[in-house]
């Protein structure tokens, strides 16, 4: 057990897993000597060498595509895309190759691989270093998508993703990379893909979020406690598959839900959560589920924080569902 932030946890977890399984190869831009631009692969090159910690040409299509072939051939590649915003040149490789290989070959060929990518805003990066493209991946049959928000969940989910028999898009909340430290166990703890975490129990309203926005959701929940409003706080952690059961249990019991995601509003993941709540437990609702989202605009450089659904916007939405 030691205290680690998220990015340290990634590097240590990769190290632990590479030490145990020779099939694991890390590949991407600057993952070698540089240790990754965020240092998520720090010290791996020195320990495992250039064949297992592979600096690649500056080509996301080559990184993701080669990972598909390596996986089909029996390795366990972990590809790093430097920023989620740069995944698009490799997007076809994810959609047409990684996601479809098992299905289109009738299970004859598979692509057990992980594609890691730092995502989200709040880092003064403008629209090409701040986006949340998870909806693209969730909408692609054949991909699993996770988006943890804490060091411990990062370790548990990364270990599960590496062991998974299917391609996993592993999104990392980069503004929280060094913002949170916690005790991270060193043993065999894994966290199943598709299982949410109820971070806090409450009675008046459920706030559901994931990834970077969990920090703002947490702050909103703390503020609400001061106002004597009891909040249940759920971290989805996985988006495909997602933990419908936990969400519906909480919302059905409490009747009011605020759904927080910093991705653009229209067809964001919370649209799916909201639609599912309406379809399955409409009679339990005391108010319509309310989404608090990023806006349907390119991520604005000069108003980095204003774009994000911060605690104030969350609190206003909570007030709306309480007043409904």
């Amino acid at each position, binding site marked *: 057990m030691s205290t680690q932030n998220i990015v340290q946890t990634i590097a240590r977890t990769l190290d632990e897993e590479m030490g145990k399984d020779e099939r694991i190869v890390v590949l991407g831009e600057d993952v070698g000597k540089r240790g990754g631009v965020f240092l998520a692969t720090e010290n791996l090159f020195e320990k495992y060498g250039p064949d297992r910690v592979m600096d690649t*040409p500056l080509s996301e299509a080559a990184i993701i*595509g080669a990972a598909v*072939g390596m996986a089909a*051939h029996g390795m366990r590649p972990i590809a790093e895309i430097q920023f989620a915003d740069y995944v698009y040149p490799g997007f076809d490789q994810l959609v047409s190759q990684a996601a479809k290989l098992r299905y289109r070959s009738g299970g004859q*060929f598979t692509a057990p691989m992980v594609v890691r990518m730092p995502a989200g805003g709040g880092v003064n990066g403008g629209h090409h270093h701040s986006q949340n493209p998870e909806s693209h991946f969730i909408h692609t049959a054949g991909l699993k998508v996770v988006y943890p928000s804490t060091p411990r969940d990062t370790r548990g989910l990364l270990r599960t993703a590496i062991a998974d028999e299917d391609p996993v898009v592993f999104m990392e909340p980069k503004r929280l990379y060094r913002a949170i430290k916690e005790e991270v166990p060193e043993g065999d703890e894994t966290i199943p893909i598709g299982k949410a975490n109820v971070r806090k129990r409450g009675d008046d309203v459920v706030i559901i979020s994931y990834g970077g926005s969990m920090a703002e959701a947490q702050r909103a929940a703390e503020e609400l406690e001061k106002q004597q409003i009891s909040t249940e706080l759920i971290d989805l952690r996985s988006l495909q*598959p997602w933990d419908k059961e936990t969400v519906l249990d909480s919302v059905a019991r409490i009747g009011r839900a605020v759904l927080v995601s910093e991705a653009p509003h229209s067809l964001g993941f919370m649209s799916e959560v909201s639609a599912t709540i309406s379809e399955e437990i409409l009679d339990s609702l005391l108010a319509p589920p309310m989404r608090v989202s990023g806006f349907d605009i390119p991520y604005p450089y000069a108003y980095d924080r204003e774009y994000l659904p911060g605690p104030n916007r969350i609190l206003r939405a909570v007030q709306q569902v309480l007043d409904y």
Partner: protein
Amino acid sequence: MIKGTPRFEAFTDEPITLVSEQGKWVGDFEPDLSKDQLRGLYRDMVAARLLDERFSRLQRSGRISFYASSSGHEGAQVAAGRAAQAGRDWIFPYYRDSAMVLTLGMPTREIIGQMMATRLDPNRGRQMPAHPGHGPLKIYTAASPIASHVPPAVGTAISMKLQATGEVTVCSLGDGATSEGDFHAGINFAGVQGAPIVFLVQNNRYAISVDYNKQTASQNIAMKAHAYGMPGYLVDGMDVLASYYVLKESIERAREGFGPSLVETTVYRYGPHSPADDDSRYRPKEEVEAWRKRDPLPRYRRFLENEGLWDEKQEKELLASIEEEQKAAQQEAQEAGKVPLEWMFEDVFAEVPDFLREQQQRLSPEEK
């Protein structure tokens, strides 16, 4: 044969030819294939041509929805199928490679099963016709998005190199595919890694209707290999022996650690791109006829006859036996029956997740 200096020169202006159009050996070495092997190349080309004609008939009678004819490509494809080690080397076909997969040994009934989406399709009915795949033969199931298979092919070759398996990957594509970013991304990475892979470009001069001169300003495709740090061979793809020997050398050199190569074979697509295409809109009849005169099958037959390895009697027997075999294979493929509806939700993931089981319930009983 492989060690030391390569037998063939890379980056020639004219295609490498070993058998003239009159069927005369013009190589500066003696072919070292056995008589059976030499006849085998012909048998494979004839089988592929007959299968192609069968698919055209099946398509016209509405029993398959699509077909990408490989007639005119047999020289290059049969050569590739024979030059690779079937079942050991990994093959990444594109959708016009039925002659190649047939030569590699994919059973005819399974190729037809794939065309008809019956239970004999190793892909379990998941793809439109002409997208074969075969696990045991390491034939990586074809994908429609052009050139998207190139980076994964390179990935397998990098894995082979890292694990020193002695396998080689053969990645097959058309001339149009070389314009895609994925082609560049993949071949560039292969060059950097020195991966054991051979890029086989079947240049039939048309990407559906768009001719070669609209595809690239490059004099040929083989020369593009130079920029990726590997040899590029320009080969007469209507000459099965030239295609075979150049591919064989490239594959074996890759196996011995000399890295990747690109082999451009000049071929011609005798039919339209697909049954939905009307090729008279974009290419003159005279052009098609001129290429017909260079047909790889009669050309190679002339060679075998000149060598005293083939006669009319053998030809008749071959045609009859292949026809019979393919008829039986089609019967078997058809009788296996359409893939069952229950398979529809399988193989999305290793295990069918709850949310897909739920969605499956939404099919009405009559659909089930």
